[in-house]
């Protein structure tokens, strides 16, 4: 919403400065978005062309001698090169001197040389000053315009333009009068908006009117006969231009003026172009209208329109039609002031994609009680500017406004804001706003004015009093304290997120936050792509599906980094994946990938040893470290192979909790998936389903288990087994561990190899078993016995033979 300072002052008697007004507007909730103090116009001076000759070297250029009073160039004429066809001796125009910023060409002038001739300034066109689009020639002022004075003063251009960022709840402030009312209620001046005089008119409107659309809540129409339409007066054009509107002609300009002056959109029809009567009805499917913006719109069925016998003349509440619009030939005008259902106007405007000043107001809710006064106001302006005789009003279907009544206890403002405001002051503020408060007991009983559809209850009135009294008056007051040390505030899920994050970062991985949506191909490659998880209006085709996994985003990120020349990346993310559109379908996952040689010890070549390509074991180590960090060490959990389809079937595994619950998966990726994502390896990765990790057991105390330190040295024994190549090392370790649970403390695989000597399809797995006796040093016999048990267990479980 834009307006000028002089316009505001037409409604508000105030001595406040521009700065004070702008500050106050912001502090009462009408946030000032921008202020243009029009200082840009100050340097332009009125000048006279003393002589105009031909440029020696250019047919279309003239050489002007221009004088601009005693202040400019010590009263001596300036030489100026000018290409305007209307430049001539005696012309009085607008001069920009070197050093002046000219807004229309976004340039600061310098002394220039044009085709070899120096030019000491520029005679400006209206477009160069951004006054209009006119650029056929330079500004041609009346001959008596005061040469040597500021053009801005002469043309009245120094009228600051204020733009406020209006919140959608304030239709009343879509008019300058409403803004003035708010400022007056805040104590910044006196409201002086006059009530429009009632005009009864003579004779019938002379146009049949039928209203059948539910969107129409009221329709008032009047004919003014014998009007003479032409340009609107200078003052009106100036204001309209200042707020960015293009003056058309007096009849159209009046409707725009009232729209901004009172927040009351209007429409004018050229009565001569209306065939038969007007009907306010819902459009049928496929009806079209050529609107005032010169575009043809195909209207969805149910769009409320104003039509005549030939077809649609106007889209109700949004935009008029080109056909019946008013121009210089109009002598009979129909002025329309109507009321429309806000939600319908909002929907139609959205569907058609039309943003207009009328829609802006109707969808917020135009003052229903001002429909007829608005018509009278416009009528008076038409009579004043275009002459003519008004008919009587033709009014259809308006329901009387039912004012809401709200009781505001005196204490309510303080209850909600902490600010004590005297009842007298509350009453005064609400009074200026038009709420007609009266006292009843310890409360104010108010009626809500017709222009404030946003006010529904006590809390709204509290806001009115608060914002007009001043939010700054509210002193901050501490929140009541718990009076105790605050305990842990995170849930165990939140703690685990943090722990997983920090643990993975501590393993040299870099945390990413990537979009929750991926492309359909990416989603499908990782088990997703369900229709319930597709966006109906994605921002682009590659961000269309809610991700089933963190991996496609991470792999794609690694690909982007590789394309930038950073191929060795270790990335992770702790975030949500989506199995369904239900709240419990949102899963909490820690995922990571390593690409190239980005192992934990660092990537790339190095003098002390080059990093090797990442493998499934890098991913496995990340999983184990993260699980350990969240307090759920995975040692001893089942590892099943392979993992999901997107992993390499021979180089991946999954960690399961029981037969059904997959806790984590890790591995290298399936080449087909990498091809789909168009990212090359080596790449490995993992996902841990953090929300499947069981809740930690509630403990009565924080005491750790008793620590028993054995006085006897541990003994280490090595065993090398030859097994079938398919036998997993994990089974050998497990068998050795279970051989003597009390004595075996650790089993470590220290060598794995396959070779011709072992025979086809065989491999050797060597383990070091640490035996930790607790009550005596092991005797040779005992050592032999336990060794035999280990060998026996392993042989029994895996078919291994001990190497000699």
């Amino acid at each position, binding site marked *: 919403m834009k307006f000028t300072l002089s316009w505001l002052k037409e409604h508000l008697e105030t001595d406040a400065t521009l700065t004070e007004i702008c500050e106050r507007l912001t502090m009462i909730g009408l946030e000032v978005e921008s202020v243009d103090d029009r200082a840009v116009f100050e340097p332009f001076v009125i000048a006279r062309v003393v002589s105009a000759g031909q440029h020696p070297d250019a047919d279309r250029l003239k050489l002007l001698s221009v004088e601009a009073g005693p202040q400019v160039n010590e009263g001596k004429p300036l030489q100026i090169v000018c290409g305007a066809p209307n430049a001539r001796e005696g012309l009085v125009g607008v001069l920009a001197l070197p050093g002046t910023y000219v807004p229309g060409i976004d340039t600061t002038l310098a002394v220039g040389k044009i085709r070899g001739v120096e030019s000491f300034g520029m005679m400006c066109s209206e477009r160069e000053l951004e006054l209009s689009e006119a650029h056929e020639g330079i500004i041609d002022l009346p001959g008596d315009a005061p040469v040597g004075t500021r053009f801005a003063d002469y043309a009245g251009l120094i009228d600051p333009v204020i733009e406020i960022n209006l919140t959608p709840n304030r239709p009343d402030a879509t008019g300058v009068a409403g803004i003035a009312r708010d400022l007056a209620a805040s104590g910044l001046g006196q409201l002086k908006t006059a009530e429009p005089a009632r005009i009864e008119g003579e004779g019938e409107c002379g146009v049949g009117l039928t209203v059948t659309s539910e969107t129409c809540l009221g329709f008032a129409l009047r004919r003014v006969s014998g009007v003479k339409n032409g340009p609107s007066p200078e003052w009106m054009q100036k204001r309209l231009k200042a707020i960015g509107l293009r003056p058309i002609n007096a009849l159209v300009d009046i409707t725009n003026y009232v729209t901004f002056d009172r927040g009351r959109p209007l429409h004018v029809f050229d009565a001569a172009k209306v065939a038969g009567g007007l009907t306010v009805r819902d459009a049928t499917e496929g009806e079209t209208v050529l609107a005032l913006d010169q575009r043809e719109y195909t209207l969805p069925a149910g769009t409320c329109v104003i039509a005549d016998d030939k077809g649609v003349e106007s889209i109700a509440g949004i935009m008029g039609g080109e056909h019946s619009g008013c121009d210089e030939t109009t002598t009979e005008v129909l002025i329309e002031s109507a009321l429309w259902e806000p939600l319908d106007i909002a929907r139609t405007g959205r569907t058609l994609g039309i943003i207009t000043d009328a829609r802006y107001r109707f969808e917020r809710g135009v003052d229903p009680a001002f429909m007829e006064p608005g018509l009278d106001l416009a009528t008076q302006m038409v009579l004043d500017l275009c002459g003519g005789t008004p008919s009587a009003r033709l009014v259809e279907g308006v329901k009387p406004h039912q004012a809401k009544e709200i009781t505001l206890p005196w204490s309510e403002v303080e209850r909600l804001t902490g600010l004590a405001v005297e009842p007298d002051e509350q009453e005064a503020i609400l009074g200026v706003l038009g709420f007609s408060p009266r006292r009843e007991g310890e409360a104010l009983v108010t009626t809500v004015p017709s222009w404030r559809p946003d006010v529904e209850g006590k809390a709204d009135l509290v806001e009115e009093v608060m914002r007009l009294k001043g939010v700054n008056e509210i002193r901050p007051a501490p929140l009541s304290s718990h009076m105790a040390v605050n305990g842990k505030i995170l849930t165990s899920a939140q703690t685990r997120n943090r722990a997983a994050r920090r643990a993975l970062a501590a393993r040299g991985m870099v945390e990413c936050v990537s979009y929750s949506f991926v492309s359909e191909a990416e989603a499908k490659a990782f088990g997703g792509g369900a229709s319930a998880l597709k966006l109906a209006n994605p921002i682009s085709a590659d961000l269309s599906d809610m991700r089933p996994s963190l991996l496609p985003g991470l792999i794609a990120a690694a690909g982007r980094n590789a394309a930038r020349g950073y191929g060795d990346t270790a990335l992770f993310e702790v975030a949500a994946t989506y199995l369904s559109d239900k709240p419990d379908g949102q899963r909490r996952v820690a995922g990571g990938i390593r690409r190239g040689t980005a192992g934990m010890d660092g990537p790339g070549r190095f*003098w002390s040893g080059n990093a090797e390509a990442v493998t499934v074991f890098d991913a496995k180590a990340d999983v184990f470290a993260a699980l350990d960090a969240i307090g759920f060490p995975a040692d001893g959990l089942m590892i099943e192979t392979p993992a999901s389809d997107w992993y390499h079937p021979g180089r991946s595994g999954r960690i399961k909790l029981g037969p059904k619950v997959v806790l984590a998966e890790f591995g290298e990726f399936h080449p087909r998936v990498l091809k789909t994502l168009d990212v090359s390896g080596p790449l490995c990765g993992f996902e841990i389903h953090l929300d499947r990790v069981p809740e930690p057991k509630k403990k009565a105390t924080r005491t750790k288990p008793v620590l028993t330190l054995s006085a006897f040295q541990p003994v280490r024994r090595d065993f090398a087994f030859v097994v079938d190549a398919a036998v997993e090392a994990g089974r050998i370790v497990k068998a050795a561990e279970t051989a003597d649970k009390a004595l075996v403390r650790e089993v470590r695989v220290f060598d794995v190899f396959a070779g011709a000597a072992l025979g086809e399809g065989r491999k050797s797995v060597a383990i070091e078993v640490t035996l930790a006796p607790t009550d005596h040093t092991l005797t040779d016999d005992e050592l032999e016995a336990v060794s035999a048990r280990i060998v026996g267990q392993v042989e029994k479980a895996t078919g291994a033979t001990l190497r000699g």
Partner: protein
Amino acid sequence: MSDTDALEKELLTAIDQAEDEAALEAIRIAELGKKGRISDMMKGLGKMSPEERKEAGPRLNGLRDRVQGAIGAKREVLAEKAIEARLQAERLDVTLPVRAGPAGRGRIHPISQVIDEISAIFGDLGFQIAEGPDIETDYYNFTALNFPEGHPAREMHDTFFLQPDENGERKVLRTHTSPVQVRTMEAQQPPIRIVIPGKTYRQDSDATHTPMFHQLEGLVVDTTSNIANMKWVLEEFCKAFFEVPSLNMRFRPSFFPFTEPSLEVDIQCDRSGSEVRFGEGNDWMEILGCGMVHPNVLRGVGLDPDVYQGFAWGMGIDRIAMLKYGMPDLRAFFDADVRWLEHYGFRPLDMPTLFGGLSQ
């Protein structure tokens, strides 16, 4: 000069010239060993007359002690030399680089770090951290928050919709974290003090808007909390978060469907330089929206607005991260460019705490 004097001179010279331990040992054996020269001469003392012995004894003993001492001294010199030689041989070029440890290479994303910072501050104020789903129903995202059907306020949200289900109902990606207010109030009786950090989505994309971003919602509901309390909480939070001793904040009336009265909050700052400085300058930068929970929202979750009251606010986590740490472009947050993450990310062991400072 006696024989022994000549011998001593000869031996001390030989000892001095011994090149290594072995040469020294050879001298020792030849002179002081069982069959050594000096040992033999010492054995001869027994055959001497007392007078001779009286003269020769001290002389030979002195000779033996001095030779022995010289050998010992020389041995230490040689040992020292050997260490010197070894050290020389073991010399390494210590300017060769070492690999950075993993904890030096890893990074925490600024959003995670800032959420930890926020948690530290609000934990101190007695708040819990709440969460909710990203995929929401129209009811929780709009209706329960007093957004009327078809109202322009809904339009302002540029909502992402999912495909309609069999009943024609469309789920939405939550456009703000406010639905969690409703979910929390449905699940828990006042007093409530929660903050809700989370992902939010709007169909928008430019330098300051991304289709996904992060919000921090706050909610306090009890029987007394008012705007004065809200101002205090937000001012204390901003001072603590931006780590400045004072800050000028401007609360100005605004509109949100789910709060009444509603306010927007600006911080005074100086943006003339390359970094934003708080508490000085002429700029006001909007950082959050807030207000008293709307009576309709309270009623919707079964709370009587004449008994219960409270306030709520929402602010952009990415935005306050940008303000504090100076990232110029929001889009880069979600691009996973490792150069950006290394530069703006945080080390895994930089844990924000109030006792140690939120940032280093």
